[in-house]
């Protein structure tokens, strides 16, 4: 399974009628089993890119070729749960075919056992994010999209959830796209890191991370981080020269 993306342009019109370019050059292909992390400054157009990839926005220049019948799972930046349905119902509505064993395993891994019958309004942001994760994994996706899944969580919680995501991502062969402005997410989870420029977004560099996810200790992570930062500063410098 392969995802081919070639977005050459996307503009928005604001209320005053001015046109703003959000995306300029985004061209890449991803295969099943790859985890691509898109790393760029806040507000650079990452969420817009995801909306286009998922077919929620058709108003852009370029092509996106998604495999036919690919099942998508997504964790939105804000959890987007149905407030009038319980945690379990929220997951089951997205994944009607899931069996009880799989669901229990998922809830156990994400520590949601005790919250099955709670309503989303009763959950903290961290828990609501976990429900959103459970929902995205419950559909057994071919394409998994994570839009800043760890934003606005405190460090300890973000670290724990990052490890859980790493475990879930490794448990299934799929195309994973994760968008973040946090370097830690990128180095811990990625097979490939795409560096994005500030708005309008384009790809500055495509950096493979060769150390397997499970073999990344503190030393490796520090090394990967340093190399990404080095490349990022070169890319930004190149851009300001050109």
């Amino acid at each position, binding site marked *: 399974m392969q995802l081919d993306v070639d977005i050459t342009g996307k503009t928005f019109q604001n209320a005053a009628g001015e046109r703003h370019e959000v995306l300029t050059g985004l061209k890449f292909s991803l295969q099943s089993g790859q985890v691509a992390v898109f790393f760029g400054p806040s507000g650079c157009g990452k969420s817009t890119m995801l909306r286009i990839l998922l077919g929620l926005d058709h108003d852009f220049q370029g092509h996106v070729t998604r495999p036919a019948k690919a099942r998508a*799972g*997504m964790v939105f930046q804000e959890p987007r749960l*149905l407030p009038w349905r319980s945690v379990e119902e929220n997951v089951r509505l997205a994944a*009607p075919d899931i069996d009880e064993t799989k669901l229990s395993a998922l809830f156990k891994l994400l520590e949601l056992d005790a919250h099955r019958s709670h309503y989303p309004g009763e959950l903290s942001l961290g828990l609501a994010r976990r429900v959103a994760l459970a929902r995205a994994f419950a559909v057994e996706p071919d394409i998994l999209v994570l839009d800043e899944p760890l934003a606005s969580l405190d460090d300890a919680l973000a670290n724990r959830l990052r490890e859980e995501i790493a475990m879930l991502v490794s448990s299934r062969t799929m195309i994973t796209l994760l968008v973040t402005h946090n370097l830690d997410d990128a180095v811990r989870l990625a097979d490939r890191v795409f560096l994005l420029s500030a708005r309008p977004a384009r790809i500055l560099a495509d950096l493979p991370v060769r150390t397997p996810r499970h073999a990344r200790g503190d030393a490796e992570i520090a090394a990967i981080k340093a190399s990404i930062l080095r490349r990022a500063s070169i890319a930004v410098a190149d851009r300001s020269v050109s």
Partner: protein
Amino acid sequence: MLRLLSFVSFLAIWWVAAAYADGTKLPSPPAVLDVLLAEARSGELFLHLGATLARVALAFALAMTLGGAIGYLMGRVRLANRLGDPWLILLLNLPALVVIVLAYIWAGLTEVAAIAAIAINKLPTAVVTLREGTRALDRSLDEMATVFAMSRWRTFRHVILPQLAPYVAAAARSGLSLVWKIVLVAELLGRPNGVGFEIGVAFQLFDTPLLLAYSLTFAAVVLIIETLLVQPFEARASRWRPRAA
């Protein structure tokens, strides 16, 4: 307790006023009660009340279903809104009496004409309320349903409908009060039974006790339906919401 006190004071004022007023203009509570019991014993009361309630139920169901569907369409599809809006404004401002009289002229003094006329009077308020509700739908949840490839019916049942429920409750409540008022006029003008017809008879005979007996029974029925049906439905539709102040 307070409710009871307020009701008792109403009775007391009525009684005192009746004692001073002319008996034919304002009969005392026991006199009205006598008439009411006599009507109940003969079965007349239940016959007329039943006819009125059946009309209310039919016209209300018709207007809610049709109005809800049109309102949803107008909230979702811009073209439908632009086509429907002038009609909506016309219907909203058309006096109930005009609709009723025209319905009787065009469709004859029939049951269909009466129910249609009542439904048409209620329809536009249901449309307006449901259109507002549809406009207020959360787009981000629509996107979520699209990404997870939820079927149309599933999306409607679990994503759309719960968001519309408070608007349906509001439309039902305001619509019901409107229907209660209009049904009597429709009966007065062109039906051989129902509370409205009886009130018409009482008016022609200047029979105040009969008039009051029917009016008060009718008011009591409305009150019971409000507290036993409408209010519990409203509470149920918003049970997942955090308690409002």
